[in-house]
């Protein structure tokens, strides 16, 4: 049996240490026993590096988050309301921006601040990480009159905004986070919005390259520095 700590330690070592030899992985399919859970994946017969099937990892992710954080996990609904509620008068502009900001909230901001959010089951897709569950939650929140959409000015797509009811809910839900974490989330939301969809994609592809695997726009995202001096 392998423990989660052992996997994390191996991953940490790989990040900080120089690889001893360059080689092509020789991968063999296998099923790992991680703390009693059967996780499908592959192992390299040369270096021993393990690769896990993303679908099976969700379970481990939940266990790991519960272990590292305190209190009940935030629902995806609450996470959307909190993100939108950081600046209730400003829209989240576009489906892509909503998906990427929620992805960064779950994968980057939440671990950094020891917040437990229910996994949104992001998978690599044509424009980076994408969550069907999140899409459904957004639709449900809209049907319930908590968020509303309107067409984006001058572009295709829709912007999301809290309704008056949604704003009241956001005010209540704010207490789910420590005041200083709430302030940090406000700063982060503004910082993400200022990056625009293109910058968010760059950030996600840079920091979570595994989710860029199926991207159809990876090259365009990576291009494009204006040469000025």
């Amino acid at each position, binding site marked *: 049996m392998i423990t989660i700590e052992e996997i994390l330690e191996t991953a940490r070592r790989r990040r900080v240490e120089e690889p001893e030899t360059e080689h092509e992985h020789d991968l063999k399919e296998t099923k790992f026993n991680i703390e009693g859970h059967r996780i499908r994946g592959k192992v390299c017969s040369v270096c021993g590096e393990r690769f896990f099937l993303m679908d099976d990892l969700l379970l481990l992710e939940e266990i790991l988050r519960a272990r590292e954080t305190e209190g009940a996990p935030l629902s995806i609904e609450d996470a959307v309301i909190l993100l939108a509620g950081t*600046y209730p*008068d*400003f*829209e989240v*502009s576009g489906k892509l921006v909503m998906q990427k900001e929620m992805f960064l909230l779950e994968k980057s901001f939440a671990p950094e601040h020891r917040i437990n959010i229910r996994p949104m089951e992001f998978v690599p897709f044509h424009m980076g990480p994408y969550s069907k569950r999140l899409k459904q939650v957004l639709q449900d929140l809209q049907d319930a009159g908590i968020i509303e959409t309107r067409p*984006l*000015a*001058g*572009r295709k797509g829709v912007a999301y905004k809290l309704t008056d009811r949604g704003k009241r809910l956001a005010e209540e839900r704010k207490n789910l986070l420590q005041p200083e974490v709430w302030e940090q989330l406000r*700063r*982060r939301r*503004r*910082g*993400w*919005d*200022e*990056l*625009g*969809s*293109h*910058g968010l994609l*760059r*950030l996600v592809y*840079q920091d979570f390259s595994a989710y860029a695997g199926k991207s159809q726009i990876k090259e365009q995202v990576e291009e*494009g*520095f*204006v*040469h*000025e*001096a």
Partner: protein
Amino acid sequence: MKLERFKVVDIDDFGGRVSEIRTDIHRFETPSRAATSTEYNYKRNLMIETPFENDVGEYVARFNVNDIQAFTTRNGSYSSRLRTAASYADQMKYVVSKWYPQFPYAYSFGDKITRLLLDVQVDAGLDMVSVPHSSLEERNLVQHYTRWTNYVEEYAQRLGREAVVVPYVPMRLRADVFQFTMEALWDAQATYPVIGLIYAPIPRNKINYDLLRDHREEDSWLHMSAVERATWRGQWADLANMHLPQIYGIDTVATSIPMGGGGRPPLQDYHVFRYFDQPTLSIPRISSWVNEHGGEETNCPCPICRERSFPSITEEFILRRGQQSDLSPLFGAFRLHEVFRSSEAFEEGRVFISENDFGRYLTERIGTAVDEHRLGQTQTLNDIV
């Protein structure tokens, strides 16, 4: 956006004023600097998650002669400009957003392109709508602004939007035309609460700048676009130019961007870049800065430098992220350092203006360069510093 209040709250005898601006969603004080679309691009490309602290965002739209031709004859050009403007309006939604059409100096827009330039700003949802000037010699600029202001107001009303109209006045106008135009705009403060100014070098347009300084009590928001980053002349070369217009009562400033044309060879040495130095309000080449400070350590806490050395910043932004030997993207990193730190410098300067001590503040930072901006002989304030 609705501009609810612009009020001059403090005037310094040497120069400068502190004003308070309130909109339905923003509240801030000036003098301050705007962040331009170019700076937003650098932030995006370098993936900097720290938000800007600025209160005004300016989308600088470059138009060379070919662009102007395309804009009036091709559907694609308009829709592409609209998409871009809307995207910046969105990224700048936390600040007062506006655009500045940067076009060749002597060019004068005809009716058709002026209308399109105004339409695109309203359609994109920018908070302010800039009306470009017509000819530089005409005394009827005010008529021109009035005509197009009416047009914008009607168009925005049809779309159910609020838009603040900003007439753009070039600083290089002949002194009598400049005075006539500014006085007419000041007289029509209710219609023109914000006046856009196109930068021109201060020494060559001193009469116009002094007119602004003499009218520092006017409750009109003066925003200046296209300010050159550094002075280029002899003994005061490397001064950070954008900190000078505030002496003349200009409330907010935005830097110019290159007009483009021709590529540059890849840059291999970061020492050629400019680096903003807050204590001296200057922007020397890094090679000079390193000589002056005796080392490569920046000792700067901004989100770019984070107390690191120049080689380490280069490593972070270029070698690790971009993995390339061309250091051009690093230009953006140092521009962002400048946005963060010079915004702090403006904040610091506001305190001195409020305490009527701005002359001393400037002298301590820019030394004898301050002499060029002293008041004339008839004034009694020369001996403040």
